[in-house]
């Protein structure tokens, strides 16, 4: 009997020490029912008040320099200037809900690319774990996501709280954040209504 206990105990210790090397990797955030979150709501509410009337936004300008997934320099502000509204979607390969909403974002991208809408809207993905190149490739292939995707940069945390992902912010032509961020995964029709809401805040429509 005691030998059995001892051997199990040894097994436990062995497993424990085997695993100890990469604790960080092993424990990604556990999904809660409310699997997502983002910025301090205070500043967001202020913005909402100022946007009741007109497109005058005086929040911070989302100005971040990074590279795209192919390693080419990418300026977020420069990209935003080319569109009326830029949907900036933060995701990671280990985040199930993030991956699940990417096909929906791709089909929106395909629609916006045609340029048949009144306003020009762009989807921009920001990958939080681009270092896992193999995983990124597999996710992009699986979801068919062909919209621009860039590598996360620390400075972006000035504009968005990424305690929970997926998290999405919307930028106007000047790089100002428009309305509340969206937290959690959504499907295509929900995305459309969120986009229309943000365009409405800017006095535009789809």
């Amino acid at each position, binding site marked *: 009997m005691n030998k059995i206990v001892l051997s199990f*105990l040894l097994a*436990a210790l062995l497993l*424990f020490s085997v695993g100890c090397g990469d*604790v960080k990797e092993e*424990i990604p955030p*556990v999904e809660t029912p409310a699997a997502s*979150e983002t910025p301090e709501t205070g500043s967001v509410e202020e913005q909402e008040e100022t946007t009741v009337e007109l497109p005058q936004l005086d929040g911070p300008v989302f100005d971040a320099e990074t590279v795209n997934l192919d390693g080419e320099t990418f300026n977020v502000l420069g990209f935003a200037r080319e569109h009326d509204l830029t949907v900036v979607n933060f995701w990671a*390969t280990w985040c199930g809900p993030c991956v699940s909403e990417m096909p929906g974002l791709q089909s929106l991208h395909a629609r916006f690319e045609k340029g048949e809408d009144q306003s020009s809207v762009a989807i921009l993905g920001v990958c939080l774990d681009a270092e896992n190149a193999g*995983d990124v490739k597999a996710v992009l292939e699986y979801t068919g996501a062909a919209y621009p995707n860039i590598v996360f940069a620390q400075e972006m945390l000035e504009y968005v709280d990424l305690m929970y992902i997926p998290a999405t912010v919307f930028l106007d032509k000047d790089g100002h954040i428009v309305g509340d961020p969206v937290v959690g995964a959504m499907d295509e029709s929900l995305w459309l209504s969120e986009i229309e809401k943000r365009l409405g805040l800017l006095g535009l429509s789809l």
Partner: protein
Amino acid sequence: MKKLSISMKRRLVQFLSALAINLNLPGFINGNIYTGQLKGICVPVLNCYSCPGALGACPIGALQSSFAARGGKVAYYVLGSMLLFALTLGRFFCGWLCPFGALQGLLHKIPVKKAKIPNSVDRPMRYLKYVMLFVMVIALPLLVRNGVDMSQPFFCKWICPAGTLEGGVPLAIANGAVRSALGGQFILKLSIALLIVTACVLIYRAFCKYLCPLGAFYALFAKLSLYRFKVDAHACIGCGKCAAVCKMGVDPVKTPNSAECIRCGDCIGACPVNAIGRETPFCSRKNTKKENVE
């Protein structure tokens, strides 16, 4: 200091444990969870990673997360921790340290007429927790994969009432962004949690008895755990008070190390002749005779 009764002691330990495990108190106000280094450590109890106060990780959640990740990794560190917990104090963690167990104990204090579950229903239902462990925690996250070889933490996502009450609800109250993300899934999980809460008012520790996968894991090792109860067969007068007082439905004389025993110690307090003792390989209390009835 005046001598505290064992149930008073237990209540005190439960309170201190709940506090120590969830010491990130500002999180409850700010609606944020703690993300420091300690979060890499598994706690020995079912305490949600996403509780705003939580300093550590729930082993059941961590295990599922590793299974559900791309490639279906096995977190040896988590499994090792669980095995270590199981083999040392085992379900003592359930009875004395688990905050969700403590909550269930409090719920049962609500003075309403308690349900009497007939043995023919109670006994089979006890196996449900093993189904939770082997199906919801292990099999589904390992086997139900999507096109990028990812899965979901099925138990956390679809059942765990501790997650709903410790993580979902406090975050939703304190954090507007979380609130905005709530939908049908939350309603479903809240309904499950309320159902279980109701059951716990009527049945002592209904979740522990019938559903908890971590309790089930510890229960598998109950016979091997270093911390054990022992009944002195010579001292025992067969009065049956221990079995009568046990709220988990165990008869300590027959099975002092039953898988269902959460080591609360009520039986020790109830024994008129001090025949029930606690022992580890290093020391044994109260009981001097070697005879072990098992």
